[in-house]
């Protein structure tokens, strides 16, 4: 079992606390001139994303978490799991709903996603920052209609709904920022 000593603590380090994988967010070394040293850390639970604070006596050891971040290709959803493949090794991974979460509405086959693996099992799926998706349904925009602020809702092929300019029509392919959930441009434009 691999371990880390507190003097190895730094942002990004993956450790096990109470049986869960955590990433160190912040590490502060605290020591009175004439006393015992401590590490005060902020850590993020990689299963539920909650950030907590912990104190360690300097010199203590913690278990290293077998956490890996890799890029994989999205294959398909079988109704229960989402399937991904590492393109170089052809290794396949299946991710549960808990791991996929919101990313589901942006996933299109062949897209490259980021997966955090814990002990070889997907913990979290991150879609690419930008995706290109076709509009499956939207009302025709009426030129000059500013009642919706110059924008209207459009449903994309994955089921995601984004606000788009009035001139966008069904079938058009768009570039979308998945982090903000916003229309960026038509797919062939800048």
């Amino acid at each position, binding site marked *: 079992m691999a371990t880390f000593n507190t003097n190895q603590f730094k942002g990004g380090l993956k450790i096990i606390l109470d049986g869960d994988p955590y990433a160190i967010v912040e590490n502060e070394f*605290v020591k*009175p001139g004439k006393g015992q040293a*401590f590490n005060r850390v902020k850590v993020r639970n990689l299963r539920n994303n909650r950030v907590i604070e*912990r104190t360690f006596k300097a010199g203590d050891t913690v278990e290293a978490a077998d956490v890996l971040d890799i890029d994989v290709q999205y294959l398909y959803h079988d109704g229960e799991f989402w399937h991904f493949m590492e393109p170089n090794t052809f290794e396949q991974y299946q991710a549960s709903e808990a791991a996929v979460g919101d990313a589901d509405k942006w996933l299109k086959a062949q897209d490259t996603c980021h997966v955090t693996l814990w002990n070889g099992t997907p913990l979290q799926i991150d879609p690419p920052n930008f995706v290109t998706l076709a509009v499956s349904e939207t009302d025709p925009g009426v030129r000059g209609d500013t009642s919706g602020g110059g924008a209207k809702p459009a449903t994309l092929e994955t089921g995601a709904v984004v606000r788009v300019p009035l001139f966008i029509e069904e079938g058009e392919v768009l570039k979308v920022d998945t982090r903000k959930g916003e229309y960026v441009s038509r797919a062939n434009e800048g």
Partner: protein
Amino acid sequence: MTEPDWQPTATPAMLERRGAFMAAIRGFMTARGVLEVDTPVLSRAAPSERGLASFAVDDAGYLAPSPEHALKRLLAVGAGPIYQLGHVFRSGEAGRWHNPEFCMLEWYRPQADVATLIEETSELIARVAGAPRAQRRRYRDVFTQHAGIDPIGATPTALAACAQSHGVAPHEPPADASRAFWLDLIMSLVVQPQLGHEGPVCIREFPADGAVLVETDPVDSRLAQRFECYWRGVELANGAQELVDADVARERMQGEIQAQQNAGQRPPPIDEALLAAMSAGLPRCAGVALGVDRLLALMLHCDSLSQVLAFDWARR
């Protein structure tokens, strides 16, 4: 192999400020009649104190974590008020406010009371760093105020519960966690961050727990005649009425060595030269050790020590 980062961590402007700052410190000490001395950085022996880890140097001894032992040996032969301004080394101390090599100003006045040194420390900080005169508080009062427990006489169990209630208790505290352990923890993580936000503050009457070369309070033996100064939550200085009895010193130092051995460490041997000087006769004296880099960094509103160091630990 990636190229090492060769550039300094302090800007040229910062180095100019630092140079002027050093000159101001020397000017202050000279005006007060304190003689500058420089004693070896590389010492045959190391202090016997749980909270100080010294770098060992092959076959030659240890890098001094403080000039205390050498300065006391000078006092024992009749040296008057003396100061040393230079680098000290503490193994394993690296962080935002810690660099294993740092600059310390340490001075001693024979025949002085600790109260005199508290006043002088406050004056120094005000004069060279442009800070207001330090407030004075007692450890017992600030601890009670900010942590909600009277630290003097509190049991380890009560202190552990206090730490727990403030959310700072380690998940697995050591089985032998002493009063000193809990006091350090609560003081560093609960009380200290609240101190010195309106200007420097000197906290006197620290608990006697772990104060090795410090005189105990003549009235209440649970207290040591020790003080610390803080500014914006950062510890700046540590001073005391110095212990003069060699036998008490030996006993306490042996206790520290034992505690370190019990914790699986290999402490350096006791400093016989210091004990011999104390037996020969250390005069009644008071002394202070002040972190010069920290004072400069706080004065200039830096958020870490590396900004005031020409090359921090990572770039040494």
